């Protein structure tokens, strides 16, 4: 079986391999430039804590969309693999009628499916792991300069999660192919379902995969502390009793604040007044050091979803008419 898969796929393996090498060369060269400009920057603005945040973006991001492209490639690769490797795996056999050839050899359908999926997933993991390492290395100076990397596409293109997404996307693609028996609809459904899964995860689940931390922050700024590179999930204004204060046009409602502060018009003075009366921002956030724990949890979640798709596919393929 492995022999057959190699005969059928070697051209594609070679093309993808060459593509990967070219991408590595490209990222290697541009990545050195990024790292170099980062070091220059760090030397340049050492001691100017405030200026560096903006400056780093200006130097590293400004002028080129390259880092966007790099992140996008890391973000989209699992989709592409699920769509082009997963969806046609069974669907193409149905479309070309070759399931009547391959499933009448002396090999059970289960074994056929197991070997095909194992090689596809294995190859995809190798590909994505190499790409993710390259991207993470390329991006690491920007990571250091640009603090929050939990709540954005940057999270999706680094660490472990690309592997989780990829395995899940392949399993989903194969399941859709087995179900729909046509490649193109299976590809479409794979993209759609995967997009929904990832959107829901990053928008609604990821903030809660680990218990969020909360912190009280002064209204008049300063002392951001761990928030500087954390992922802020929500912030509310609370009074000295730690109860949320109702807002009116974005500032605390007059009825909810002490009379002494009510007469003040200027925002800054109002802040100072409220500060003095024990008002704070209550901020819920995921600290930066949750990065790997969140990566691990999300990867495990996608692997689990992938296993559900795999189990479904085996059940469906061995029970349904071929």
């Amino acid at each position, binding site marked *: *079986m492995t*022999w*057959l898969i190699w*005969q*059928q796929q070697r051209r594609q393996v070679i093309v993808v391999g060459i593509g990967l090498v070219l991408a590595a060369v490209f990222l290697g060269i541009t990545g050195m430039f990024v790292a170099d400009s980062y070091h220059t920057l760090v030397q340049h603005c050492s001691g100017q804590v405030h200026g560096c945040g903006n400056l780093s973006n200006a130097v590293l991001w400004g002028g080129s969309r390259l880092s966007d492209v790099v992140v996008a490639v890391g973000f989209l690769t699992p989709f592409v693999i699920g769509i082009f490797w997963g969806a046609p795996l069974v669907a193409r056999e149905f479309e*070309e*009628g*070759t*399931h*009547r*050839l*391959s*499933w*009448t*050899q*002396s*090999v*059970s*359908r*289960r*074994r056929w499916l197991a070997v095909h999926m194992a090689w596809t997933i294995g190859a995809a993991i190798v590909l994505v792991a190499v790409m993710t390492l390259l991207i993470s290395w390329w991006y690491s100076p920007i990571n250091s300069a640009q603090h929050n990397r939990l709540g954005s596409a940057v999270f999706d293109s680094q660490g472990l999660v690309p592997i989780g997404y990829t395995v899940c996307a392949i399993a989903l693609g194969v399941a859709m192919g087995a179900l729909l028996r046509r490649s193109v609809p299976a590809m479409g459904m794979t993209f759609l379902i995967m997009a929904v899964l990832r959107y829901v995860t990053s928008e609604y689940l990821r903030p809660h995969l680990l218990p969020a931390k909360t912190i009280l922050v002064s209204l008049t700024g300063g002392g951001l502390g761990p928030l500087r590179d954390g992922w802020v999930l929500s912030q509310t204004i609370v009074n000295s009793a730690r109860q949320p204060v109702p807002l009116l046009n974005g500032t605390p409602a007059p009825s909810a604040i002490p009379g002494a502060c009510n007469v003040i018009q200027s925002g800054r003075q109002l802040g100072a007044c409220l500060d003095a009366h024990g008002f704070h921002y209550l901020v819920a956030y995921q600290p930066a050091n949750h990065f790997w724990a969140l990566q691990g949890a999300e990867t495990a979640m996608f692997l689990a979803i992938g296993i559900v798709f795999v189990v479904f596919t085996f059940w469906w393929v*061995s029970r349904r*008419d*071929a």
Partner: protein
Amino acid sequence: MSDSALSSRGLAKRYRDKWALKSCDVEVPVGCIAALVGPNGAGKTTLLQLAAGLIRPTSGEVKVLGSAPNQDPAWLAQVGFLAQEVPLYRRLTGDQLLGMGAHLNPSWKETIARDRLESLGIALDKNVAQLSGGERAQIGLALTLGKQPRILLLDEPVASLDPLARRDFLSSLTEAQFEAELTIVLSSHLVADIERVCDYLVLLSRSQVQLAGRIDELLAAHRWVSGLRQTTEGSLAQHEIISESHTERQSTLMVRLNGPIHDPRWEVGDVGLEDLVLAYMGRKGVDDMAQTQRRLSIVEDRP
């Protein structure tokens, strides 16, 4: 049952709301070349795919080599199946496909497949997409023969071939059968082809088996009879009328004999396979017959 290569009992298959096969009882003895004939849509492909285990029956059972089709590699190894459109991985060469056969079938015998294709002069180093339909059919057959099955299920194997390729293919079959003591079940709607190679007939029509048996026995059991029209009544009552046609004076009938025909007013002649097949295909089903207006009084008179 034990010396049937393929047997079915009450076998039925429904696709959504359409019955492709209904209460099908078939016995194909070991070692024969059986033709599965019938009009398009009669259920030939369904029966073969049920036997190969590609699809599952809605009800009833089918047994191939003594067991219901399953995913046990040992059973799969004994059953060769060639689908109608001869599916092959089109981007692979003949050599690669033979390699596939070798890797996926423990009982594979390379020489059986390779010698056959080489003696036919088929290029094994070209992608099969570049080969003709006849050459692809030969590769498909070689792949199924190479695994040394005990039963070969072929769905319309010659449908897409020109007459010359068709003859080559069918003689390949008889050779293979002779060499390997195979049972072969092949579907076709061309009687000329099966007449040349088959010794057993299963006739499917309207999703049901209309006729089955050894071809020589079937031919021996049927006769054309013709005579004056008015003589039809009564004198053939013990025989089964398969078909009839009438002119003003003359009646011509095909009968399934149930004993000899003594009445000297009938002229009796042998039937050919094609006549036999056409007569049964054109015959109304039992259900239809109850409703039809065209019933002969002879049919009504039968006990």
